[in-house]
């Protein structure tokens, strides 16, 4: 697999991971509402999902700026 294909593959995976993290942030309060999670677990899941989202967003933003810089040069 060539390098640009690799980059786009990684980007897709990171995007999926970010979307999954955001989904965790939504699913956790629903499970808490349904009584399937206690308050502590809900808040911890929300925090974990948030961290995942920001990590993914940072990787995507960083990757994008690197790709843009490479394209310029």
């Amino acid at each position, binding site marked *: 697999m060539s390098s640009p294909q690799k980059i786009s593959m990684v980007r897709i995976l990171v995007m999926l991971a970010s979307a999954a993290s955001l989904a965790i*942030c*939504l699913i*956790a309060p629903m499970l808490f509402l349904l*009584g399937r999670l206690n308050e502590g677990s809900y808040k911890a899941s*929300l*925090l974990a999902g*948030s961290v995942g989202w*920001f990590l993914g967003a*940072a990787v995507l933003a960083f990757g994008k700026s690197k790709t843009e810089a490479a394209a310029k040069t």
Partner: protein
Amino acid sequence: MCKDHPDLRNNPMPKWLTRFVTEMDNLYEYDREPVVPAQFKPASQFVGLFAGEHVAGTEFVIGAFFVLHGVSFSNLIEGLLIGNLLAVLSWTFVCAPIATRTRLTLYWYLQKIAGPGLTAVYNIANAILFCILGGAMVAVSATAIGLALGIATPKLTDVLPNSLGWIILTCLIGLAFLVLAILGFEKLSKFGEACSPWIFVVFIAGALATFPKLGIHPNFSNFVEIARSKIWNGIPNPGQEQYGLSHIIFFAWFCNLASHIGLSDMALFRYARHWAYGLYSAFGMYPGHMLAWICSGIMVAGVNRQMDPGRMAFEAAGIAGCLAVVLASWTTANPTLYRAGLAIQCVTPNWPRWRATLIAGLLTTILSCFPLFVMKLLDYVAIYGLVLMPIGAIVIAEHWLFPLLGIEQYRTETRGRFINWKALVVWVGTLAICFFLPIHLFFRWLPGCLIAISAYTLWNRIAPGAGKESEA
């Protein structure tokens, strides 16, 4: 700044800085010239921009205040539906058509109509108002960080800082926001864009997680009953004024008055392919404002109707909630500081951007110490829109009514005048009349807008020659 900028001629600068300044010059030149079709943006960018821009830290306060002001559930829903629709229509039929016809920012279009003198006055007013808004954002985030440090949030009735801890905290946060705004506005804006969907999700998560505390069943079967009895129960908190349907309609409408009727969003819509792109503002009003205000209302009910955004978010969503309050405030304060800096820069003699932003940030930091601006946020939002509205009304009159009535447009520009005194008098006069109008603050802008449009048009219609004597 331009390519003949004195700093560039007299001070030898490193290459990277020269390149930076040239790039900035290019950006300014872009603003000065009408946008050309090649630069038009697709609809999806407008959707994203509106959806992201209208979920800010202040949303935690606004929705909560509706509960504290004793808004009933039906009034809230009807008021938000109607008010937000009026806001969308204002963007679509007032702001976007002028922007797509002129392809200019309000700043440059105002120069043609009101002259550089009045544009400078407008910029100063805008900068001060931006700083106050930024101060409110800093104060909102201070409630979240203060929670961790054990610093009490000021009371609803507080005007002055209630403790040394609050002053130190707001100053530190204000300075941190300022440093970040100076160091990397562009990059941080991109980070802000990444924050938007997450902040939106935290609002929903916080509201959902508050449901069990309020006794709402997982199948939502008793949601309306609980909403009517425990959240928007129509009973204001002690000392708070009762708000009804008309208050909510008008608040939702004028919440972004400076952007739509005040025309500052011309900067955005000049990139639109068609004026109907104004309808995309609905993505900011309905999933943005409406949902966020409802969610924050639910969250404040979960903390016994105490106005403390930090505690409210922490109780509902834990550390992620506090983080959301801080990030939602900061992502809005960052462009606010930038815009305030830009407004100051336009009226200063070749000040670099960082220095103008520094002044704006210091003013914001000082103002953030005063709880008045966050505890009276709804009134401040009304005043903010009201102050800038007459300028939008003047531009609307000159753009649409002058050609219809055969009045010469852009006389200030064609005659090379520094200031359009008629516009200044109409602006100040409208505000004076609005001040004395015997109606609630929320409703004053509408008659004020009609007064400004009629007065400016009539004055130019009946005394077209008067301009020679009255205008410098």
